[in-house]
């Protein structure tokens, strides 16, 4: 049987999509949120951040937007990004995949059982 599950996302893509799932953001905000969420363990360096954003746009998981009304555009240099339906599906699938690993870790008591 061929595996029909979506391909795994790279950690950077997952973090970017996770950030954008809350709403459209510009690159700097994405970088800050990812750094905060991962407690500094993942730094999205400028080349890495914008390179991955270009590839996410090319893959149809993210699209560029004009940004929310009244958002600071810093002289028109800031680009805003919004997650697409395909991006949300991919992010959800990745989150489920990660949850399966966490569940497996709990079953094997690598992690404590979750409270009801």
């Amino acid at each position, binding site marked *: 049987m061929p595996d029909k599950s979506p391909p795994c996302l790279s950690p950077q893509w997952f973090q970017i999509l996770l950030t954008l799932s809350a709403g459209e953001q*510009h*690159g*700097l905000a994405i*970088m*800050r949120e990812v*750094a905060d969420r991962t407690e500094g363990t993942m*730094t999205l*360096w*400028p*080349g*890495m*951040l*914008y*390179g991955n954003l*270009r*590839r996410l746009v090319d893959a149809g998981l993210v699209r560029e937007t004009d940004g929310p009304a009244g958002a600071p555009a*810093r*002289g028109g*240099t*800031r*680009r805003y990004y919004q997650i697409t339906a395909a991006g949300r599906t991919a992010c959800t699938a990745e989150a489920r995949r990660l949850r399966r690993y966490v569940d497996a870790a709990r079953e094997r008591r690598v992690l404590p059982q979750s409270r009801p």
Partner: protein
Amino acid sequence: MKRSVRVYRLLSRLYSSELRRLHAAEMEEAFLDLLARESFKRGIRGAIRVWAGAAVDAIRSRRTVRDRATSGLNLDRVRAEVRDVVRHLARRRARTVSVVMTMSVALTATLMAMVVAYEVTLKPLPFRDAGQLAIVTRSSPAAGALGVTLNDLGLFVSGSHSVQAVAAFNDFDATLFTGTTSLRVPGAYATASLSRVLGVPPSVGRWWSSEEDTPDAAPVAVLGHALAVQLFGATDLALSKQLRIQDQHYAIIGVMHDRFTFPIDAQFWIPAGRQPAYARSENLDLTGIVRLTDAAAWPVAAADALAVSSRLVRMDGNVDVRLTVSPLRDLIFDSQARRLSIPLMITAALTLLLAGASVANVFVMSMAERGVEFAVRRALGGGAAAATRLLVLEALILSTVAAVVAAVAAHAIGTALPDLLPLRLPAFVLFEPGGLLLAASAALAAATTVAGALIAASSAGRTLAPLVHTRGTTIDWGSLGPARVMAVVQCATACSLAGMAIWAAGNFRAFNAVDSGFDPSTLFVTYSLSADQRYDNRGTRETFLRSVLDKVQEIPGHLSSGVVGRRPLDFVQDEQWATSHSLTTPVRLTAATITPGYLAAAGIELMGGRDVVWSNRESDQEVVLVSRTAARLLWGTDLWSGEQVIRLSAVRDTMSGARPIRVIGLTEDTHPRGLDAPAAAAVYRVVPSQRWTPWVGHLAVRSTLPPQEVLKHVREIIAAHDPAVPIYRWRTMGELIDESLWRSRLAAWLLSALGVIALVVVVVGVHALVGALVSSKLRDLGIRAALGASGMTLGGTVAWSIAPLVLLGIGTGAILTSLLNGPLHALLPAATGLLWSSVTAALVLLVVMTFACAPAARRAARVDPVTLLRR
């Protein structure tokens, strides 16, 4: 912070251009934010971490972009680009054809040079462990290489620890009779061990045993594959059949496989033991072949040969004799043919280099013409990489077509070449390029054209400079700068090749026009008295000689006839001679032992004194005639005055007190070593019959009849006297001259052809370059025309822009040609006048360059400013 911004902007140059173009400001903002946060949290360590991380990020992001470009192969895009390139090539048909022709001509030349060099110097010989096979010959500084006797081989094998097995053979042409027809076929007589020494058994049947290699054994023969099929229809059917070779019937006991030919093109082999002269100690007709114990035994074999040489000198008392051991390849391809392949490779490589430079120029021109197209592509996001990709694709398509054309051409030339060469080549030598060489040449074509495309692509961005500069009377080359270097390389290479071509063609014409000193219609027929024991007696040999010469005089239309010991243009021998006043300073003369009538038969003109008569041969005093060059060497004048000379070649003569020999005449000079060699200082010896009667004689006959008619008569005369005496190797002097010139002719032909190719190729390249220059500067030229510059001025501006490059190239080429003096003289030893050839080549190149630049200069002169400015 400002300093950090400046440093980051420098660092950000490491990022890909695409990323910078789209996100430069955002990335800078993100970096500064990171730097601020990390510095706040961790101080200097945080700042260092951010700087290091940014550097790694820049490098990694660049690599990621490149990986995407290469790994993510978008077939649709490739297909579209191929379609685009093909359409472009079809639109520019003339340019496409010129590039394909330029590359294919150069590639064909390179391919053929590679094929010849491989076949002659590198291809393994088709014998088992051919590296262990050696040829044993006698040689002497005066006489060159000779055959060996059985005694020599016996001495060598008994005294050597390096020899595993030994065999001997001699090649000859024989008449084979099949029913009512006969055919002349090259063959060889050989010892029973030849098949074992070569490591090649017959494919059908067997080789003969040592018992069958004796005079009394039943005659047996082994046939070559092609001959067996020709005579009997199949190899199996040939076994046990009888075949008449000359006047003897042989039973066929074996057939060799289809690619076996040894020596050279032999098609049948018979036991040497059946030849009466085989075991005679003075018979030097044999060639020895030995199989060494291993490939490392060469130095031991050479030392053994030296030791045997010393024994031979002691036994013979002849200081000149030396036994030499040389690789088998030397027998099959002579050293001159092998030397030929190296300069040939160099010349072909230069032609390919020239073609590559021309193609690069064509691409540069293409870039200049397509400047707007590439600008639009870039504006649409195509980028420099896309432009390069298109050019490389174009180069690959062109080189593929060129490689296919070259392969077809090389195949056709390779098939025809053996027939064009007046050279006997073994059957395993094939001048048709194999798959590996074709692949190598295709790779060469691709590499050369892609290199040209990349050079052109490097100037892609810069050809779009909107403002064109002019300085004084020349044009600023601007973006076409790299092409200037190529133009110089092209002119230098073309000048060098053209110089060599003119030199070769000029010299070949010169020595082709040399009077050989011989009559070209003289027929030489070689006979051998080795067929019967009764010729061991000198008297019977002399009787045979006189009887045959008497009968030859009765041939209708007979003019003159005589016999010479060594045939000119085939084998000549030098000896040391001196006058009684200059015994300490002997001179080297080319000696020929002759009978009365030979000089007139060979057409050698008598300048003074008298010709030799039979009474000279019957007396016990040797007499000689000398050529004018010899007389000048001996006496300082070429006026005959009846001097005496002394022969010093043999040590015995000097030890016993050399006797003066009377000079009875003076002859005109001849070229017995070939027309490409200087006139020989010749001495014609008339040795008394009790001291010299030849085993193998070369009968020279001059007659008013055609050579074939004369040959028929000679054959009948010899057969009537003794049917067992074979005659072979008949040639007219004209044919001998032609055969002696084949190497020089081939070298001159190849160099001339490559010189012409070089000139054509350089015209394509420089025409393209100047065309590109004018195309890229059209606006500037239009402005100049609008400001009042005349057409002559504009055309002159173009000419002055290219002139320094052409002159620099020609100067470099002339120096290059003078450096090639050594290798060139290896090709044509007697040729001279390289300096004048270089000067002529320079002048020819100047004229050719003028024609190459003329269309572009005319285009510049006819620039219409109104049309240009409107555009």
